[in-house]
């Protein structure tokens, strides 16, 4: 038996490395894939065997997904799952493996990876043509660009421009489009960032993503990387208990357990982005198996969080949402972490009977949001336990885990609109901490576009 065969056999015992692209209605599924021992969710498409296209995506996201696909190193394959029975025509390459049941995703990925290793399946070919985004335009004696020695637009991209910075020097400024599949970001979030070193000078939300789709598609080096399963996006998902509670009475336990689960799944993701992936998995397991008796585990988690100096160091005084900024938001944990006690549940007589008091913190920083969500998860378990069979009172507004839901509004639009104001001047690491701590639920660029239109002027 040759060396190659040995290596292939060894490789076959490794988990299939997946780079998930999370589309709409997939957040119920995506986070839990991390718990599956058959899979390893990786941060970079360069290291992935399988591109996992989850949920529904619109054309813009598919274009970005194609760039991610082409960045993967062969042998590579594609697995597609969509909740509404799949539209096979959507994914541009024909060799994608289509899964119908979410429970089969992991096994399918693993089989596809094994087939790729065993050469029973050929590696999926490039989707986009390997072309320069624009021809080189040079006029100087050495082929350089337009004006002066350094002007010009090599391959259609202007060289970095200069702008004032905090040191009083005018140095190069880099315009980067990040997202919609950057692993530390909520899936679907796309930002235009002006960077100087790793200080963010300006953030804009791409208003017309469609117009710029060419550049977001062609920019493979951008690390168009991927997705990850953020906590369940309950805002739009049609069958979530929170949207159901808008119109009909729902048992409180059926609202509060998913809320606690959402908060814990969010915490797992936040821990992962903070560099504590292993502990995040522990929290994710807790969230997965959450029941009415899990209160002690949450208490232990809370103690651990409070004692972990390094986490406090990385999150306190980061991304402070002031009281004034919070007032402009519809509500939710972010608002309550800034000293505002708005909570749709306090208006519900059923909750009032249970003695519900919203959890509020005053600091408004990322740490406050972390702690508040853990406290709310704890409170949710208590409420669920005490509520017995009592049901919520439908009033047209229901408190979802990200904030109040109304028939036509999701709580995330306001948060996305707040990002430019919040992130300007931050270092990249702090900005990511802030974005994660806000728990924004964006999946469809169309929703983001609406947010950009409604942004603070």
């Amino acid at each position, binding site marked *: 038996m040759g060396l190659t065969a040995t290596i292939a056999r060894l490789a076959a015992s490794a988990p299939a490395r997946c780079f998930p692209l999370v589309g709409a209605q997939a957040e119920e599924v995506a986070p839990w894939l991390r718990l599956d021992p058959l899979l390893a969710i990786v941060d970079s498409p360069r290291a992935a065997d399988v591109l996992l296209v989850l949920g529904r995506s619109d054309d813009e996201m598919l274009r970005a997904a194609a760039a991610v696909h082409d960045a993967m190193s062969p042998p590579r394959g594609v697995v597609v799952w969509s909740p509404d029975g799949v539209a096979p025509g959507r994914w541009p390459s024909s060799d994608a493996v289509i899964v119908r049941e979410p429970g089969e995703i992991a096994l399918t990925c693993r089989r596809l990876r094994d087939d790729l290793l065993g050469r029973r399946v050929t590696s999926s070919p490039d989707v986009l043509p390997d072309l320069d985004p624009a021809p080189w335009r*040079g006029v100087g004696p*050495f*082929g*350089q*660009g*337009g*004006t*002066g*020695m*350094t*002007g*010009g*637009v*090599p391959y259609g991209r*202007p*060289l*970095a*421009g*200069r702008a004032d910075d905090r*040191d*009083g020097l005018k*140095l*190069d400024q880099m315009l980067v489009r990040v997202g919609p599949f950057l692993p530390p970001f909520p899936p679907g979030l796309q930002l235009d960032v002006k960077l100087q070193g790793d200080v963010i000078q300006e953030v804009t939300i791409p208003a017309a993503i469609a117009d710029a789709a060419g550049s977001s598609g062609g920019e493979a080096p951008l690390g168009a990387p991927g997705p990850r399963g953020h906590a369940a996006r309950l805002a739009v998902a049609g069958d979530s208990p929170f949207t159901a509670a808008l119109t009909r009475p729902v048992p409180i336990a059926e609202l509060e357990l998913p809320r606690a689960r959402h908060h814990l799944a969010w915490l797992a993701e936040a821990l992962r982005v903070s560099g504590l992936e292993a502990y995040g998995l522990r929290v994710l397991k807790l969230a997965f198996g959450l029941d009415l008796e899990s209160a002690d585990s949450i208490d232990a988690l809370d103690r651990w969080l409070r004692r972990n100096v390094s986490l406090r160091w990385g999150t306190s005084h980061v991304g402070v949402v002031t009281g004034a900024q919070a007032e402009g938001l519809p509500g939710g944990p972010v608002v309550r972490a800034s000293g505002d006690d708005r909570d749709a549940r306090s208006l519900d007589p059923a909750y009032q009977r249970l003695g519900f008091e919203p959890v509020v913190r005053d600091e408004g920083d990322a740490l406050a949001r972390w702690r508040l969500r853990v406290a709310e998860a704890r409170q949710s378990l208590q409420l669920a336990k005490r509520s017995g069979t009592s049901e919520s009172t439908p009033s047209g507004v229901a408190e979802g885990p990200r904030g109040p839901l109304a028939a036509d509004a999701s709580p995330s639009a306001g948060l996305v609109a707040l990002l430019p104001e919040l992130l300007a001047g931050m270092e990249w690491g702090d900005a990511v901490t802030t974005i994660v701590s806000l728990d924004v639920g964006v999946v469809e660029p169309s929703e983001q576009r609406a947010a950009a239109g409604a942004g603070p002027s």
Partner: protein
Amino acid sequence: MILDVTFWAFAALAVFSGWRVFRADSMVRAAYWLLVSFAAVGVILVLMKAQFLGLILILMMGGEMTIMAVFMVAFMMNPAGLNPMTMVHRNRVAIVAGVVSFLAIAALGLFARFPTAPAPGGVDPTRKLGVELLGDSMLVFQTAGVTLLATMIAAIAISSARGRFGNADEGSVEPVQLVAADAGDEPGEEGPR
């Protein structure tokens, strides 16, 4: 024999990389070619039993060249070498000056007569250097320390945005007509770089 081969290899590397510094298109490469040149000289020093000095040279230059690379990227256009680049003036004069200084020093080395008294190896050179630094040459050593301290203060004073009389970029600005003349040469000044 092995010593000689090693020496010539590193000597060639030191000279070659020194030459590449001014031929590289990429700023980062230029800085790191210079680092290679320093490291090669460091190795030659180690071969000459000046082990401590050779290693210290490499240690110092690793940091300094990295800072230099960052400076190049920050202050120069075209740092990545995507555009071919030559930025020279008085090239011919410079070449002549370089060749003349090489010939002069090499001639000095080849034709002057030096005493022959090779240094012994082992731990001794480092120990002796230490005793010298903190013994007979204590004053020189201390002066070097004070010089470095003064340099640090001066460097911060020069480069900081705020001076004694307010912000550095207010007031001390080149006369208007010269700026205009410059702008004529370099219309790309405020444009995309």
